[in-house]
Structures are given as structure tokens and as C-alpha cells.
């Protein structure tokens, strides 16, 4: 009905009819708009890998078949069914359309040539997945500009996932920002300093690591008299804890061992309960060193998860790992520096061994049990 009127054109009663139709269209517009369409609107997906030093960049660019069909009529026989053979028949045309709208540069423009030609599914929709090989003769930060279909509409996006030697990046190219340039990576010293700060900060705000450390330290001052002895015991325990968590942190960060987050978090909470319980029995004090080492291993995985959350670290393993570890140690030392004088003063009082130590241990055990329950 609508088509009939419109095709009659602007002649007979044209403007009135068109105006009324427009009104109804407008009304419907609002209603239909209130729920959002299910599949992707105008999105292409570009994945680039630039990890080798030889100037070769591998790219796949997934372009929606529906969208390509508009630029290049893919339905050769017009039957409404686009077959793979029909798409392949347009392979050269699609390839040059894509390459005309792709710029890869590293200092200078790289040569691009089409590679393989496959099908991929994105968001439940078929996409032609173009393999593209870029050959770069110059050096510099990777630069990508993929503006196919981008000029035409504000809602067009090219989602990019890039892996380079300095890390993994994601971005969305849009008509307002059609170009992506690899960010300059921080210097070795800067990443080291940053991760020292991150390590320190993580212990200070991570109440569970602090609680475990404090539980290990509390009994150290009980049976000893001299400062020398206390210090030696403290040094042993803190070293055991540190060595253990450094081992597992390194294993986890290098992906040699991978543990899921939840069990690790639960084990850390459990370590607090166990350490608290051991503090209640003077006879158990000989277990503290193995405990510090054993649970140190577990806490290392916890640090690894924290480090993973901090995110992409530019592929520089050594400064990141060393920085984070040193940060953790600095935080531990700062805790000891505050706690030790207090404990040394308190230990002379009978109140310390009889009341304070059990009460504090019980309180932290309860907190550990609560964390365990919350994380289970």
C-alpha cells in the first residue's frame, strides 16, 4: 500500500500523501527503536600480528557478507541465496576493495597483498575473512587505518585487535578516528618503577596478604629474649615466604603453570585460618617455617592474578616481574618496620602471650574464615 502511493510520485495529491506517510513512518520509528536490533550494525573485525622483527605483518580482516553484498552485488543469479561460489567469483574485486581502504605503515607505508580467502562467523553472521600480508621495509611504530565503509556512516566501526612486540592492543576505528598508532612503549626503567609501585600498593591494600604476614610475625617475639634472635627468626620466616611466592609468581607470569583465580583466593583465605590456628598452640611453632613456605607458594599465584589484572605489560617480563617482586618485599619490610617495635615493647607484658596473641589470632582466623566463605 505504501509503495503504491509513493511510486505515484509527487503529482496527484503527492505532497499530502507523502507527508502523511512520513508521519506514520516517524511514529513507528520511535516505537521500533525502543528495542535494539539483535545483530551487529556495520562492524568489521581486523586482527593484526606484528611480533617478528623481519617487517612482516599478518592481518585478517573479516567483512560482513551482507555489507559486501551492498558494495559488490554478490547474488549473481539474483535468487536471494548467496552461495560460497558466488562470493569466490568476486574474490579479486573484494580483495582490491579491501586493500584500497587499508593502510599499514611502520615508519613508512608497507606493501600489502591479499593472501587467503575464507569464511568466518562473527556475532552469528557470515563474514568473508581476508588474509592480508603486509611487508614493511622501514621500522617504526605500527600504524593501521582501515576505513572501508567508514566514510559513509557514523555508526560504522572497524574493531581491531593488534599484537606487537610491545603488547596486545584493542581499539575501535570510527569515522571520527579512522587511524590507530601503536603507543610508544615505556622505557625499561619506567616499567620497572611502575611495577615496584604496583607491588607495594598491592600488599598494602591486599588485606589478606597482610593478615597472613602479621599472623606469621606475631609469635616470633613471644619466646625469644634478644633482639638478635627475634630478627633471625623473622628473617627466616619472611625469606621463606618471599622465596616461595617469587617462585610461583614467576611460574604463573611465564605461563608455565596456570591456576584459576577462585581456588587460589580460597586457599589464601584458608592459609590465614591455618596460620591463626597454629598461633594458638605454642607446640605448633615449629610448623611456622614450612607453613610460611607452603602458603607462600599459594600467595605467589595470588600475586600473579593481581599482576594479570594490572594488564598488558609490554612484553617486558624481567623488569615487570622484578619490579613487582621488589615492590612486594618493600611493602612487607614496611609492615615489619612498623610492627616490630610495637611487638618488642609488648612482649614483656604477660598480657601479650596470654591474651593479645590468642585474641588477635582468633580475630584474624574469623576474618579468614569469612573470606573463605565469601570466595567459595
Amino acid at each position, binding site marked *: 500500500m505504501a509503495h503504491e502511493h509513493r511510486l505515484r510520485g509527487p503529482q496527484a495529491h503527492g505532497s499530502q500523501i507523502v507527508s502523511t506517510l*512520513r508521519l506514520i513512518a*516517524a511514529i513507528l*520509528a520511535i516505537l521500533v527503536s525502543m528495542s535494539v536490533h*539483535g545483530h551487529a550494525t556495520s562492524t568489521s573485525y581486523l586482527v593484526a600480528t606484528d611480533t617478528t622483527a623481519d617487517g612482516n605483518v599478518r592481518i*585478517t580482516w573479516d567483512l560482513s557478507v551482507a555489507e559486501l553484498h551492498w558494495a559488490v552485488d554478490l547474488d549473481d543469479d539474483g535468487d536471494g541465496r548467496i552461495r560460497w561460489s558466488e562470493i569466490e567469483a568476486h574474490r579479486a574485486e573484494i580483495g582490491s576493495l579491501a586493500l584500497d581502504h587499508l593502510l599499514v605503515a611502520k615508519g613508512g607505508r608497507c606493501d600489502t597483498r591479499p593472501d587467503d580467502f575464507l569464511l*568466518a*562467523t562473527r556475532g*552469528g553472521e557470515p563474514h568473508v*575473512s581476508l588474509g592480508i600480508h603486509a611487508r614493511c621495509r622501514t621500522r617504526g611504530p605500527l600504524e593501521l587505518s582501515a576505513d572501508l565503509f567508514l566514510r559513509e556512516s557514523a555508526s560504522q566501526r572497524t574493531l581491531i585487535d593488534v599484537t606487537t612486540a610491545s603488547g596486545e592492543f584493542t581499539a575501535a576505528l570510527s569515522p571520527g578516528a579512522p587511524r590507530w598508532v601503536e603507543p610508544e612503549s615505556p622505557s625499561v626503567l619506567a616499567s620497572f618503577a611502575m611495577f615496584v609501585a604496583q607491588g607495594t600498593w598491592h600488599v598494602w591494600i591486599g588485606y589478606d596478604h597482610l593478615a597472613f604476614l602479621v599472623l606469621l610475625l606475631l609469635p616470633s617475639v613471644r619466646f625469644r629474649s634478644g633482639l638478635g634472635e627475634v630478627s633471625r627468626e623473622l628473617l627466616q620466616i619472611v625469606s621463606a615466604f618471599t622465596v616461595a611466592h617469587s617462585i610461583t609468581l614467576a611460574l604463573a607470569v611465564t605461563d608455565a603453570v596456570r591456576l584459576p583465580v577462585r581456588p587460589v583466593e580460597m586457599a589464601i583465605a584458608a592459609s590465614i585460618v591455618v596460620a591463626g590456628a597454629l598461633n594458638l598452640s605454642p607446640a605448633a611453632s615449629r610448623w611456622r617455617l614450612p607453613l610460611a613456605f607452603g602458603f607462600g607458594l599459594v600467595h605467589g599465584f595470588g600475586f600473579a592474578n593481581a599482576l594479570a589484572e594490572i594488564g598488558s605489560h609490554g612484553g617486558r617480563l624481567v623488569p615487570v616481574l622484578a619490579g613487582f617482586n621488589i615492590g612486594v618485599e618493600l611493602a612487607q619490610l614496611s609492615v615489619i618496620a612498623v610492627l616490630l617495635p610495637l611487638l618488642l615493647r609488648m612482649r614483656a607484658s604477660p598480657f601479650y602471650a596470654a591474651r593479645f596473641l590468642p585474641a588477635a589470632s582468633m580475630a584474624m582466623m574469623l576474618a579468614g574464615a569469612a573470606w573463605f566463605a565469601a570466595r567459595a
Partner: protein
Amino acid sequence: MNVASQVATVALALVASVVGAAERLRPAADAHVLTVPARISDDPIAVLERQMRGGAADARRVEELATLYLERARQLREPRYFTRAETLLQPWIASDAASASLLNLQADILQNRHDFAAARDMLDRAVRRDPRNAGSRLLRATVNGVQGRFEEARPDCLAVLALGETLAGSACLAQVLGGTGRVAAAEALLRPLQDRGSAWVLSLLADFADRRGDTAGAERHLRNALALQAYDEAARSALCDLLIERGALTEVMELLDLPNLSYGLLVRAARVQALRRDPALSRTRRQLAELESLAERRGDVPHLREQAMLALDVEHDADRALTLAKANFATQREALDVRLLARAALTLKDRATLADLKQWLTSTGFEDRRLTAVRS
């Protein structure tokens, strides 16, 4: 006519990850990749496109073609036609001489992607260009109405009536009355018009009936609206909600038996699956999560209303639901938006939100039988 089924995508709709590489494969030559509308030589869109390729682009043809694109976008639930319309309109909109009708079409595209502020700017420009264009007034009133700015909508509705557009003007005014404590008057205004074949009028009547507590009447109106416009997503969603409420889950699944389910309709499917403890729920949730992360990466306006519904009715996460419903309420204030906020706040006994909501209900006079708990 089941137009929607014309755009069925291939069955290999595996949920692929938004981020990173998708699985790539080489299909058989005769593999059916995508269904598109079959080529019809006298398809009005094809006719106009041919004429324009022949160099016959003028404002009238552009308007015709863009209108057809928008219609088809809604009929086929294929948002790429919006992109296509926008592409077509862009050079014309950039000119100061753009007609109000062209600006209306662009505003329609903008509000369709929930960019309400830009849509209103575009409509302000259209009204300045031609104060007698009823379409601009109506669209502006409806955008304002959807956002709860009823008093701003009122003068535009009156202008539409004064321009002789009785049906559209009445519906427009009824929306204002319905939002400002005069549901009975709004119904009285629309009831004589309910057989005039407007899905919008029927949807408004359904909304009013529902808010009076007449759910059977609301259901009847919505079914009539869908009989007129099978692709009216808002009517379909509202009908699903009513049916879920009265436990007619099989009927809901019949309503949702469509290709390309929108985010909003997928949430309704998830609600039914959750109630039935259907294992298909996990797949639906994966699809929803993928759409969310895609929208996030693209930088699209999030589907706050439906996300709040998902959090409340499927995930039973009232905290998250409240956050989402509050954010949604800032831009959308239809009955469903108000109810979601009220339900989340009541679940959490959030007095501050309930007090704010009560204040809003009092100041606007918004009536809804389901909101009595908030008023008390």
C-alpha cells in the same frame, strides 16, 4: 507475509568471540552462506538506486529512497539499511538548504540508535527550517515523550493537530496526557481512533489499559497492533512481558520464534528459559553477553533497559539491576522503565531511590497501578 524470514542467516551461527580471531574455514562451493531479498526488477528500492546511479540524484529521490531504506530496515530488522540511508542522506544534510523532511529522516536514524540529544538538535533545525512540517513536530514530541519531557512535547502535539493531522496529533497528545496523570482523558481521546489501523494508537491504548490494571485489554490491543505491524518490536516485547507475567510461556516462545532476535527480545527469551529451567538459557546468555561486549567495544549506547531486566529477572542481581535501572531512568521514562527502577529499589529496600521516585511520580502525576507499593 513473513518478511522477517527473508533475512535468515546461515545455520552456522556459532557464537564467535568478539575479541581476537574467529575460526576461519573454507566452505563447499555450493554452501548457502546468506539469504538476502531476491532481486525483483520492479523493487522500488532497486528502481530508485538505478536511477540515482544514472546520475538522477535530486532531493526528492533521495528522500524517497531514504524513506524506503528506513521502512525496510524495520521490516527486515536489518539495521544496515539505516547505515545505507545515512550514507545517502549525509551530503544533503551537510547543506544548509536541507529540507525539513530530509532532516526528519536523519533525526529518525539518530533516535533509532538512541542518540536522543543529536536527534533533538536535528529536529530543532527542521522546525526552524519549516515550522509547518508536522513530521518534525511529531518526531520531536515523541522523542521528548519517551524521555519523560511531557511538557516540552505538548506544544508540538498541539501543532500537529493544528496542521490537520488528527490521528497522529491525537496519539501524540494522548502520550502527553498519559504521562501527566490523565490516563482516562488519554484513553477517551484514542478510543474512537482504535480502528484506524495505527499500531501506535493500539500500543498506547495497551499501555494505558495495563497501567489501569486491565491486562486482558492491554493484551488484546497489543495483539491487534502486531497484526497490523508484525515487525513492531516494542509491541512484541510488551506482549511478551504481559504473557510472562501470567505464565503463558509457550505463547511467549511462539512470539519469539524469529530470526535475528534483538537484544530486547533475547532478554525475554532468557526470562522464559530461566522460569522453565531450560538448559538453552546458557546459550542465550552467551549471545547476550556477546552483544553487550560488541556494543561496548563499538562504543554504542548500551541497552540499559533490557540489561536491567536481565539483571533483575534472570540473574537475580538486584544491585546491578538498580544501577542499570537508574542509569536507564535518566534517559527513558516509559512505564516499563519506571517499573524496573521501582522493582529493583523495592527488592533492595533502597529508601533514597524510592523517595526520589515517589517525588517524580507526584510531580508528573504518572499513573500506574503496579506502582502503588512505591507511593505507600
